[in-house]
Each structure stands twice: as structure tokens, then as C-alpha cells.
């Protein structure tokens, strides 16, 4: 039996469809949708093909010529740089002093930044210690005395020899003090 071709992939169900296809209306007012061969309509396929080609081209071009800035077509570069076996590994953290004089070691996450984000903006912190001041204001003090009056960005430097850690030193990258 030749059925009229419904537009699109799955034809609309219900009374109108049942009437158009000369089918008895199933209990509950719905007919089961017969599969229309050919899948998505021609235009749907064309749009899908174009979208596929564009996204593929974007992802490949981003990987070959692009940079992080081109997200969502950025290169897939997590852990893609090489650390020399005789080089060093830098791990940042913050150190603060509260109004009551207590010294604190503050992990980057406590100030709302991931470690990689601090590393990504390291040079900005170095150039502009005022940024640390603005960051210190976002630190959540439990009491007025635990408000930060000093904040430094410190880099732990693990030096490597033959691919093994062989020493540790620290470098203060930037310091902000409340005036």
C-alpha cells in the first residue's frame, strides 16, 4: 500500500495523521509513526552536511593555526607543552596577612582562581600588584580582624634533574599591602 510521504523525518502523530494515512486512530488518540525511508528531508541533510563541514574545518583550522583565544575552536592543548627533564616546575600560591597580624597560606582556589588561571595571568600580577589588592577584597573574612591587609603571589619552583625533583625554592612574584 502506498502511503503519502510525510514531510520531515517522523511524521506528526495524532488524528490529522491518521486521517491523512487512512489509519484507524489508536487508543489514546495516537497512531504509531511509521518510519519514512530516507531519513531527514533533503534540506535537513544539506544543513547538517554544511554544519558538519564548518565545525570540522573550524576544529582543524583552530588546531593548526589557532590559539586558546579561538575557543570553541581552540587547539586541544591541555598538558601539550614540554617540561625539560632538567628544567623547573612552577606551582603558585598566595600568602596573606590579616589585620590581626596572622600569616596565612592561601590556595588559589580559596580566592576563586584555578592554579592554571593564576599561571595564565602571572605576568599581569607581576606588572600590576594592585590586581592582588582587588583580589584580596574578594577574600571572605570570618571576622573584621581576619580581613587581608597584605597579599603576595608566590611561585614555588621545583627544579628537576634527570626528570626527578632535585630542589625547591620560592619566588615572590608580586606583593600588595593596604595603605
Amino acid at each position, binding site marked *: 500500500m502506498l502511503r503519502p510521504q510525510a514531510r520531515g523525518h517522523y511524521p506528526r502523530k495524532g488524528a490529522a495523521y491518521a486521517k491523512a494515512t487512512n489509519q484507524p486512530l489508536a487508543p489514546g488518540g495516537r497512531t504509531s509513526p511509521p518510519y519514512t525511508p530516507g*531519513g531527514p528531508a533533503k534540506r535537513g541533510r544539506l544543513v547538517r552536511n554544511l554544519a558538519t563541514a564548518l565545525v570540522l574545518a573550524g576544529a582543524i583550522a583552530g588546531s593548526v593555526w589557532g590559539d586558546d583565544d579561538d575557543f570553541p575552536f581552540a587547539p586541544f592543548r591541555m598538558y601539550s607543552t614540554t617540561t625539560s*627533564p632538567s628544567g623547573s616546575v612552577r606551582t603558585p600560591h598566595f600568602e596573606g596577612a590579616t589585620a590581626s597580624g596572622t600569616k596565612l597560606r592561601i590556595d588559589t582556589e580559596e580566592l576563586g*582562581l584555578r*592554579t592554571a*588561571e593564576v599561571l595564565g595571568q602571572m605576568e599581569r600580577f607581576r606588572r600590576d600588584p594592585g590586581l592582588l589588592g582587588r583580589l584580596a577584597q574578594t577574600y571572605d573574612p570570618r571576622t573584621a580582624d581576619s580581613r587581608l591587609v597584605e597579599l603576595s603571589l608566590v611561585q614555588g619552583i621545583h627544579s628537576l634533574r634527570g626528570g*626527578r625533583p632535585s630542589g625547591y625554592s620560592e619566588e615572590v612574584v608580586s606583593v600588595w599591602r593596604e595603605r
Partner: protein
Amino acid sequence: MARAIGRAEPNAQQFVTVLQRATGGLGKWWYPRFPHRRAVMFRRIVYAFVIVDVLLTSFAVGWHGELPGELYQPLLIGRILPLPVPTPLSLYVIKAALLVASALALTRRMPRLYGIAVFVLYLEWMIVNFSYGKVDHDRFALLIALAALPTVPLGDLHDEDPDEAGGWALRCVQVAVVLTYFLAAYAKLRFGGIEWLNGSTLVRAILRRGTSVADPLIGYPPLLIGAQYLIVAFELASPFLLVKGRMGRALLWAAFAFHAGVYATLRLSFIPHLVCLLAFFPLERVRPPPSITKVGARFRTAAAQKHRTAHRSPDRA
């Protein structure tokens, strides 16, 4: 002259035939006739995951609103659109909208509208996430899934008929998963050079975020270099994930083993990517536990009864 043209004609025809066949084959491959139920199940998993992700795995994105505006370094897309500097309020609104849109996408009403809403909101959520100095690549496949799923017309959940629209969406996710691995290998070559293989990148990773499982490994550089070779070998072999049969399955389990290892040693979960790996599974075979089905059926029967009572015609009453 005429002979030359005469000779050239069959070649040209052959070329056109070969091209047509190749295009046809590629067309069939991009539109696999997976059961409709597979796409529906994958869709459910993805939208349910977005809710989990926003609340649990990527909740830290919300912190960014508290940060000083100067730390916001908008990506190209954020500068073109141009997207506003995130504030606690704006991120709260995006988060709430994302939760609502994902919940609505889980219902069967207006799948295209809610699907597009989830994609746009999640993209913005990620733009915020990556605009503070670090861009991750573990969410590419999820973004592709969110972009492709709204194109799947929703039929009956139990419909196991072949569905090319659903097949296309699933294929896109599969290709995105493979690209994530393969292009990660390429990025290592591009940014790290061939010396990446013998370098100390894993030592760096362990020193920065190693777990108690990983810390003892730091004393064995050859072991870590071996692991680096294995990582690149796996990433380069990833296109075989798309091959049917034993090879594809072996690589799929290798992918899960790889991510389990990475999580155990570096606490890098790659969960959004793992969800997309499910696009390789025959999800149509997953049946909810009978208890849930029974509760659902009871709920539906009760609702239908209530509906009948409310709309009972006066002559029957």
C-alpha cells in the same frame, strides 16, 4: 584530438562514479541508521548530566563572578558578541536558566527550543569558565552533543526503528570525541615538539596536582616517560574508536581505563567527555530498573484516570 577526447571520457566518467560512490558511502557513514531509542537515551543522559555538571563538577565557574573584573580576559567570541563582564548576579541567572532549560529539555515538550537554549547557555557558561587565563579542551564533545541533539526529532521512546537524524547527532558526538584525542596529540607535537615524548610533562602534572597514588611515581622517570608514549599512542589510535567490532570496543575500554588512570593520579575527571563516550554504546538496550518503570506507569495511569474523570461527558455521567 578526437581520440584524445574519446580516451579521456571514460576516465572522467570513472572518476565521477568513484566520487559519487565515495560521497554516497560517506553520506551513509555520517547518517548511520542507529535505533531511535539510542538517540533518545543519549539525549536524556546528556541533559541530566548538564544539571549535575552545573551543580557539582563545574560549579566553580560561579566563583568567577566574585573576581575583580580586570581578571576577566574575554576570548575572541566574547569580544565579538560582545559578552558582558561576569558578575555574581549574571552568573546566578545563567546557572538558574541552565538548570531550568536542562530540566525542560528532559521533558518531551519543545525539544528543539529547550535544546538550543541549553546549548547557548552552556556555551556562555564555558566562555566565562575559560576567560580567566585558562582554556580546557575536555568539553568540546559535550558542546557538539548539545549543538547536535536539538536537531533530533523526538519519536516514541520505545521506538527501535532506524533513525538517521539521531544517527547523525550520535555520529557527530563520536567524531568530536575522536577529534578531542587526535587533535590533542597534534597539539603536543605543535606546542611541545617531538621532545614532549621524552620530556617531564607528567612530572609537572604530578607536582602540581598529583594524588597520593601518583606521588610515589615521581621517583621513576622512565615509567612516566613510558606513560607519555602510551598516551600519545592512544590518542593517535583514537580514530579506530569509529571502527566496528573488536578493535573499536578495545579502544573504547582503553579510553575508560586511561581516564580512570588520569583521575586516580591527577584528579582530572574529564567527566563531560566521558559522558560523550557513551555515544559509542548501544544505549537502546539500557532499560530503567523495573521499580522506576512501575512507579512511572502507576503515575501515568493515575494521571490518565484523573484526566478522564475531569473530561467525562455529561451523558456518561
